[in-house]
């Protein structure tokens, strides 16, 4: 890390210059603590301090038990998603100067909380259509197989992929965490799988069956570039009651998306495809 820490605990910035402070109300939840609460911290900030900078400052100087998730620090990995004053943001690119004097930070909504600001993302990824090539996780190798599995209806299903896969030798890796190399690695362009759209979605707030914007956008992306996937299967998956028809056109997903993956527009494109059918020249070509 290139972060330059100020002596005596401030400011929470990589740039020089401590301008003022902000009061952070940070959501806290620890298993066994008996409930949720908000802790308040006064955080010195500079002109370019981000919310993630401030949270890391709190963790380093005020409360080491604060749990948060981050990785790349430049809005690429999608791991530092939180709610800032109720609005979904990637903490690493959310400037505190754009917020008020008091900033409330909460975990993403509509996903189970593991601890503090860290949510369980399995439920997010399990929503994706099983045909989507990126949604594959490592797993227990079958006898003579290579151990690739993917999620199908929330359950891991073994894939039959060619080639040997090296496995780590730790027993836990053998049991549950084998990490074969990614094959056929294709992602939904632009989507960074951060989960902000699912958190922002007002329909997901009231229906856990709804598969959500990211998964439906991934399905629409499959229609654009099927790569061998059966288009009818994808449309049937998207057209289920918990699919595109559960969307109530709040459009908050597109607004929350930090990568401009336009999930709402993709959901509407799926609806149009299901309602009116695609152009003839798209059949078998896309």
């Amino acid at each position, binding site marked *: 890390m290139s972060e330059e820490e100020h002596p005596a605990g401030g400011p929470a910035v990589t740039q020089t210059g401590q301008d003022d402070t902000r009061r952070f109300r940070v*959501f806290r*939840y620890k*298993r066994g603590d008996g409930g*949720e609460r908000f802790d308040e911290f006064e955080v010195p900030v500079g002109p370019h301090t981000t919310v993630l900078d401030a949270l890391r400052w709190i963790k380093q100087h005020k409360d080491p038990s604060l749990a948060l998730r981050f990785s790349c620090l430049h809005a690429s990995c999608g791991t530092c998603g939180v*709610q*800032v*004053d*109720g*609005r*979904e943001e990637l903490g690493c690119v959310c400037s505190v100067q754009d917020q008020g004097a008091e900033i409330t930070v*909460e*975990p*993403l*909504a*509509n*996903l*189970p*909380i*593991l*601890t503090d600001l860290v*949510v*369980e993302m399995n439920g997010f990824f399990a929503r994706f259509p099983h045909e989507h090539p990126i949604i594959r996780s490592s797993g227990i190798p079958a006898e003579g197989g290579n151990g690739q599995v993917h999620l199908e209806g929330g359950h891991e299903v073994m894939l039959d992929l060619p080639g040997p896969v090296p496995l780590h030798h730790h*027993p*836990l890796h053998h*049991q*549950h965490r084998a990490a074969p190399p990614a094959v056929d690695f294709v992602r939904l362009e632009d989507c960074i799988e951060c989960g902000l759209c699912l958190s*922002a979605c*007002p*329909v997901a*707030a*009231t229906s*856990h069956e709804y598969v959500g914007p990211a998964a439906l956008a991934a399905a629409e992306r499959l229609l654009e570039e099927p790569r061998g996937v059966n288009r009818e299967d994808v449309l049937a998956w998207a057209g289920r009651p918990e699919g595109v028809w559960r*969307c*109530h*056109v*709040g*459009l*908050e997903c597109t*607004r929350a998306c930090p990568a401009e993956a336009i999930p*709402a*527009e993709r959901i*509407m*494109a*799926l*609806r*149009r*495809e299901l*309602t*009116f059918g695609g152009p003839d020249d798209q059949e078998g070509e896309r």
Partner: protein
Amino acid sequence: MSAIDEIPGTAEREQHGPIHHKGPGPAESGWLDPRGRGHGGRALALHRITGLVIVAYLYLHLGVLSMLLIGSSAWSSFLSLVTAKSFLALEVVLIAAVLFHGLNGIRVAFVGSGIAVTRERGLFWAGTAIGTAAVIFAALHILGALS
């Protein structure tokens, strides 16, 4: 039993915490939280609220009509109540709710079927303008300014 089940604390680690929702109150009210919402999210919330208002009015209307079964005196005394200006103002609120629900419903139908996705913001503001003008006209008319 697999090896991982034998590690102390595994069961506790596999237990997830509560699902966080927007806003105060029960989880089902998460869609009501206005913080950080755009016009689409707020329109959705208002659409649901106005829908509930219209349904409530329907049952109220049926209840009021049932007063006719009681007799003309009950109906006449009720009419004197509902023709008061304070009560007529509630009709303006009802008209506003019906107009918003209907106009936003048209917008949602067009956008939701993939026909006018890129024009949804224009549809929203066009509906708002039409609805506002209609509510102002209705308010002036009902409250007697035009009569």
